[in-house]
């Protein structure tokens, strides 16, 4: 067994093909071999034809003159084609991603179903309305006369976008595809090495609907190694694109930032940590405590704590004895989830070891469970230094929820509050500290249609706001 590991380390394994999608056409090829540490396999792609990724600005994008209505209809049909998956491409993509073992198969399957359901006409329209106020701005030059009598026409003009996709959610792929299409953009998706398959599989479903439709013709999805200057220096230019839409932090964003310049903007979805704030009301009765622990576990454990909305640090108003009761209950609820969604991967060894050190220092810390991915709760006086992952909850006792506001910062995204009534007391302080979303405890995974994300209306940021000034309205 160990011998096999050793040999595997030296001998290259078979590589999985990851085709490209370029302006509505599938491009197959196996010229370039890439290593994916996350996938645990190599994959092969065609060689990138850089010229094919670029359309000159003199040539209007395929969607520029297509009405939103028609785009929505096409997206809805794409959702249906995704559900049919007649050639099994999505199934194959799920197989490949589930090999990464980060999320169990059932969970990815359900995300793909949710992704298909996301392509719902009424909801997408509602999304656009909430983001832009008036969706006519996408189709027409909308007139306005100001209080001095000046007349202008405004249009949410289609942009040229590069989307640097995160690899941790099929939902993000489908959402980026939908929003990018609704704003009628020329879209280039750069896929990540942890999932170079899903975006292309979704786009393939479009070809089943109509291979010549302007939506697929305005989209390309390719892979190159993030930071590969041979590609990025050539195409990250304002002559070709208006905005780079990027997720994450660290190297991923540093790579992108160096190409920003006049005419090339960044729309960034920064790396986020979500938290919970639980008031002393949780201890009013045993039934309530149980209910609160169930909701907290839901926010912590959803998607095996891979997403930014998952709670990682829970501030609980109470004394240590009370808080320990909550911790014990929370641990039980996290473990109970495993029956439905499976365990998360075990904690990396260094993290597990840090938690074990805490266990030995029981004057200062409390630890419930072990770091095997089945659910772990660590109680500490202050938030721990590490980023809790793989179903790990860090519970911090506080005297009052307001005293926990000092731990809120610009990386704080979602804050789940119990009881719901106390959201009002906290929301200004949370927003002031940098947090971007306040929800009821247990509802971190919910989303009201078209609500701001990371402190912005995404479609509003995507489009190119253009004005046509038409002088003063004549008083005749």
């Amino acid at each position: 067994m160990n011998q096999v590991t050793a040999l595997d380390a030296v001998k290259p394994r078979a590589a999985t093909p990851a085709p490209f999608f370029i302006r509505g056409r599938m491009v197959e090829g196996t010229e370039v071999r890439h290593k994916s540490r996350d996938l645990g396999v190599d994959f092969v792609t065609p060689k990138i034809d850089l010229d094919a990724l670029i359309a000159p600005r003199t040539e209007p994008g395929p969607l520029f003159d297509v009405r939103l209505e028609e785009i929505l209809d096409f997206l809805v049909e794409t959702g249906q084609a995704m559900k049919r998956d007649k050639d099994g491409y999505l199934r194959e993509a799920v197989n490949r991603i589930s090999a990464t073992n980060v999320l169990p198969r059932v969970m990815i399957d359900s995300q793909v179903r949710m992704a298909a359901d996301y392509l719902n006409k009424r909801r997408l329209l509602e999304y656009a309305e909430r983001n832009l106020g008036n969706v006519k701005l996408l189709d027409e030059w909308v007139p306005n006369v100001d209080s001095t009598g000046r007349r202008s026409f405004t249009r949410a003009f289609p942009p040229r976008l590069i989307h640097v996709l995160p690899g941790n959610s099929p939902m993000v792929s489908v959402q980026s595809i939908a929003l990018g299409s609704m704003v009628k953009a020329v879209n280039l998706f750069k896929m990540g090495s942890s999932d170079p398959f899903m975006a292309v599989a979704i786009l393939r479903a479009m070809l089943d609907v109509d291979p010549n439709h302007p939506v697929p013709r305005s989209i390309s999805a390719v892979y190159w190694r993030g930071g590969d200057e041979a590609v990025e220096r050539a195409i990250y230019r304002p002559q070709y694109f208006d905005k780079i839409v990027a997720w994450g932090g660290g190297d991923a964003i540093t790579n992108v930032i160096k190409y920003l310049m006049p005419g090339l903007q960044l729309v960034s979805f920064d790396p986020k940590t979500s938290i919970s704030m639980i008031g002393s009301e949780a201890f009013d009765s045993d039934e309530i405590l149980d209910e609160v622990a169930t909701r907290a576990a839901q926010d912590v454990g959803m998607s095996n704590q891979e997403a930014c909305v998952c709670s990682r640090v829970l501030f609980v108003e109470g004394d240590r004895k009370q808080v320990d009761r909550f911790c014990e209950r929370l641990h039980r609820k996290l473990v109970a989830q495993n029956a439905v969604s499976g365990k998360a991967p075990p904690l990396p060894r260094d993290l597990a070891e840090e938690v074990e050190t805490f266990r030995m220092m029981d004057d200062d810390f409390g630890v419930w469970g072990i770091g095997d991915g089945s659910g772990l709760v660590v109680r500490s006086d202050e938030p721990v230094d590490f980023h809790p992952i793989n179903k790990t909850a860090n519970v911090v006792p506080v005297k009052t929820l307001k005293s926990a506001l000092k731990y809120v910062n610009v990386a704080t995204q979602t804050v789940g509050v119990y009881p719901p009534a106390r959201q009002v007391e906290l929301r200004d302080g949370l927003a002031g500290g940098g947090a971007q979303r306040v929800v009821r405890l247990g509802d971190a995974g919910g989303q009201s249609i078209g609500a701001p994300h990371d402190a912005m209306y995404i479609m509003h940021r995507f489009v190119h706001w253009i004005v046509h000034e038409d002088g003063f309205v004549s008083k005749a």
Partner: protein
Amino acid sequence: MNTAMTLDSQVRQLVSLVDAENPFDMAFSEVLPRQLEAINERFQDRVHKIKLLKNRAETGAITQVRRMADVVPLLFAHTAYKSYPEGWLVEQKWDRLGRWLDTVSTNRVAPMSLDGIQGLDDWLGRLGEQGHYVSCSSGTTGKCAMMNATQVDLDFAGHALLRGLVFGGLAPNHDRRMISLGQVASTPRNRATGRPMTEALSAPGVEPFYPQVPPITIGGITEMVTLRKKMSDGTAKPGEVARYEAEAAARAKAIESAVQQAADALIESRHMKLHITGMLGPMYQVAELVRSKGYSAKDFSPENSAFWSGGLKRAVLPPDYRKFIFETLNLTTERICQAYGMQEISTTAIRCKAGRYHMAPWVMLLLLDESGDHLIEPTASGELEGRAAFFDLSLDGRWGGVISGDKIRATWEPCACGNRSPSVGEDVQRYADLASGDKIACAGTIDAYVRGVT
């Protein structure tokens, strides 16, 4: 005198091989059973002393060490020595830090008077009075590792290095001037390790050269850690950041000055035999400067020697850097000693003539898979690749088993140099540097929002 040396034991026998004529020529098949016996001896003694070890033994259900695979669950991650909450350091909670240190130490870190302790340096000083010689180092994550050691450890590290130098082909004859390059953090380990080498090589009456620059103190490293934490908490004021940036600029200047001073010292002492020690990065910079001042190999003694440890540490050097250093300072492969090790253990592996790092018999090399969870069993021939882990039987003040962050190629077959001990190829890489770098997720921490304090 100490635990390691008073036990009439396999541990003692293996560790005392440091004084054997050539400890690196023992066959693995011969050493392995003795190492296993010795590690078991250590384990039985320490499992009740080192709390983290007890925890690991219980988790791994290990009660005896009989085979190499039994050692794996007992290894500490190299991050074990930085598993304390950083807030305690920043808020100077010495009592709590003491309790933490106790969990990774052989000898009890007893509660002590904390009166008058002004900072980390004071606390470390007070620990030293109790026989706990704690070395701190800032690692790749920026957090300081704190490693406890006894006097035995400090003495052994220096002695073993000197013996290694001899294996590496250098002859300590009190006949040269020591030239030390660049800045090294001032820690008990660093101070102790170099001393025997310096004493054995320096000619009588010839002062060793060290660049005259403010030492990198542990207190200084802590200030940086504190500021980074305050910046991520959002409590650091711009004035503090500006002061830090100015200090960082001053440190960069000091490094420049150290290079300058070392180049001058080399030129000034060029008529003497020299022994040059330092990291590869500064060594290359010094060589460049010496060259630019018009000196090269012909101006230096053909008996010069050098010692360096560690790899390039991310220094970006031209591919022919070795040749350039050799041709500037009149060095040859035979007259340099190169070592590979990690700060968590005392013994370094010395590079042989064939360019491989050899394991001393008192250090077990364990090759693991990338996750560090599984042993890759040694094979009688061929080279295997994986994560390096070591068990250093000489360690007294803390546990000897540590997993590194290094990707290595190891062999257990006899080396081309003629020695039979297991050896590690020269191309050591860090897993951290190999990460694909383009994994993107929406979840992440405030660390991504802190600029410039690393």
